[in-house]
């Protein structure tokens, strides 16, 4: 993602015209990617709103248990943003050790988010809030309530899994990105180990059984990039990775209220 041959800081002002955005190329490149990605998420959120508007009696089935879990996930993500910004700060001040530890803390929070979210998915699927093509969970009686939601308003599970799945993919890739920045090639065996655990520890009816291969593909791509361009990542790389991470956090700030809080189970008069 962030690989430059031609770096142009403000320092190169003698050779080039001053940058139109007053900063270095990598950061501009990441911002442009984020613009595009926010439109990708924006389109998904608009598709969700479109479905919700055009469906009378949109269900509001989330129990307080789900909301508590999602609030905890939000807290993890916000905290990871704080640790990320501290990692960038450590990088700018040249404190390599602090930078690495803050990055690892960020990754830990991100991983916690993914695990909590994955557990919630599995629970909802087992209880019947599922997509038509997801295999049935053996030995588990679907709760009539969720089953009913999935059958009467198929848009509900579709948008839920579509939006949060896309976001979960972004968080996962973000953790991998930070892992490469923090540990470079030492991270690849870790990633392969995580892939094996995620693949073998999940039953074959779970979507995560197949989703785990994202880790394998990322490991291969990361290995190729590190082979093509082995280098030490400087503070600019950390800052650019941070931009991506904060963006993932930002997107969740919209998904959480729209998907969860607007569908809480309360008695309405």
């Amino acid at each position: 993602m962030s690989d430059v041959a031609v770096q142009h800081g403000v320092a190169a002002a003698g050779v080039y015209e001053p940058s139109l955005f007053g900063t270095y190329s990598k950061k501009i490149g990441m911002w442009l990617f984020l613009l595009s990605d926010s439109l990708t998420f924006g389109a998904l959120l608009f598709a969700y709103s479109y479905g919700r508007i055009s469906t009378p009696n949109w269900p509001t089935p989330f129990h307080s248990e789900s909301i508590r879990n999602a609030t905890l996930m939000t807290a993890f993500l916000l905290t990871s943003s704080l640790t990320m910004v501290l990692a960038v700060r450590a990088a700018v001040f040249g404190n390599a050790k602090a930078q690495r530890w803050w990055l690892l803390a960020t990754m830990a929070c991100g991983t916690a988010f993914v695990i909590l979210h994955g557990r919630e998915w599995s629970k909802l699927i087992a209880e019947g809030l599922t997509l038509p093509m997801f295999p049935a969970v053996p030995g588990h009686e679907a709760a009539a309530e969720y089953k009913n939601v999935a059958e009467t308003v198929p848009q509900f599970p579709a948008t839920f899994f579509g939006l949060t799945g896309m976001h979960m993919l972004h968080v996962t890739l973000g953790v991998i990105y930070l892992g490469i920045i923090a540990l470079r090639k030492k991270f690849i065996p870790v990633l392969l180990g995580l892939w094996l655990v995620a693949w073998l520890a999940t039953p074959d009816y779970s979507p995560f059984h197949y989703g785990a291969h994202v880790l394998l593909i990322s490991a291969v791509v990361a290995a190729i990039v590190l082979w093509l361009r082995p280098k030490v990542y400087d503070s600019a790389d950390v800052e650019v990775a941070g931009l991506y991470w904060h963006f993932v956090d930002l997107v969740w700030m919209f998904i959480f209220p729209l998907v969860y809080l607007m569908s809480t189970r309360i008695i309405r008069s």
Partner: protein
Amino acid sequence: MATTASIHAHAAPQGFIRKYIFSLDHKVIGLQYYFLALTAVFVGMFLSLLMRIHLIWPQVSLPLVGEIKPETYLSLLTMHGTIMVFFVLTTAPQGGFGNYFLPIQVGAPDMAFPVLNMLSFWTTFIAFVTIIAAFFVTGGAPLHGWTGYAPLSALPNSGPGEQLGADLWVASIALFCIASLMGALNFITTTLDLRAKGMTLMRMPLTCWSWFITAILGLLAFGVLLSAGILLLLDRNLGTSFYVPLVVVNGQVMGHKGGSPLLWQHLFWFFGHPEVYIAILPGMGVTSQVISTFSRKPIFGYKAMAYALMAIGLLGFMVWGHHMFMSGMSPYSAFAFSIMTMAIGVPSAIKTFNWLGTLWGGRIRLQTPMLFAIGFVSLFVSGGLSGPFLAQPVLDIPLHDTYFVVGHFHLIMGVAAIFGIFAATYYWFPKMFGRMMNERLGQIHFFITLAGTYAIFMPMHYLGLAGQTRRYSQFTEVAYQTKLIPLQTFMTYAAFVTIGVQLVFLFNLFWSMFKGPKASDNPWEATTLEWTTATPPPHDNFGGRTPVVYHGPYEYGVPGAARDYIMQTDPATVPSH
């Protein structure tokens, strides 16, 4: 923090693979894109030829495809559209020429992110392989048209080609989105950050402006298509119903409900209309460059041209609904879209009049690039004039499903953009390969192609007004359609000739590459930066130095100058415009 200006950190690569396959050099990547597009254009052209043959000889069994059934015809149509729009019109002018010449024209040693550039090409390549693979899977290629309208595209059992073939189609489009995104952010960053000293925005050649604006359009549009494609994949493979309402296929109720096909159309055209400008804007840039150079006059209204490009880019995002007048969209939105679409005629007209103003009183050199640039203007006007008809819902509704629309978009977006590519090829060939293309063959190519394209696409307008429907594989059943077959026959013969003469171009291209006369560094006496460097340019474009720019890009016929042109890097004291 990037404290040092490590300009040009990657050394000239050694070994075949690093030099020609996984090259990081924007020039090699540009050529890779160009030859990918060249392959794609011949595939697309072959498909169109099969369709034209089938339209007039429905009984004939054809090579490679055998007997053409109506659904085979739809597959041909889908693949022709997709390959042409994505892998030719988007790939060649932006990925090919943009990659090769944007960094040189702004005075940079390479793109801002060379690795990303390389990944972008190879992702495009994989996308191309994926879409070609759709021909060879069970059920064959998809039949939902290049627009992939749901619910046809969203249901795996809605037709023979809608099985694995359609999945490959969506996957290819999604990959292409990612590739274009990587390319676009590279182009924008290069333009923002790597302009040589003195190359202010208002001194950039109009080609750079057009690549820049095109990249912005691509950046903001392809992300939306990506999410549309992801939702389509979910509909097809996980049984969700984003785009599918309650439907009955062959008397069978599908397990979908609650979705809306309009959502797909909105998301698709939100990307799809900017895509039209992604295809045509680079052609406009090349035309401006070539017309100014070969008229030996400064471009008429440089700033107006740049602002018109921006206006077209901005308005291009606000008009997508004019593709959807037939869809049952809210009539109030249709009204708004109609007004905005009319408004886009203003910057387009500014550009046209400025091209004519540049030609007026110039000392015109009618060489092949110039011919194709003038051809571009001609096709742009002919195709553009039918635009205001289609911009109005009242007229669009009767015309939309007829050949009128086919003629309109082929002239303005298809052939005009192709003429832009031809102009660029003839114009920059000497710089890319160090040899000149054959002038006589070029002229033959131009005149027959121009006459041929008009002979193919002009009658389509009459067919449309007469009510001939598009996407039909045969017209033998209905009396009023049968009477129009002679015109179709004429168009097919014209297509034979036009496609035949493209082989002349192909021969000229490859023959000149090896046997053409050696080109000097500046054979057209042009002023922009690519003509100041060696032919072909060295690995870092300017041989270790970074040029300094003193002039605007089109200083031709300046009074008091020694020659009739002043290079952008010429420090002469003649007052700059």
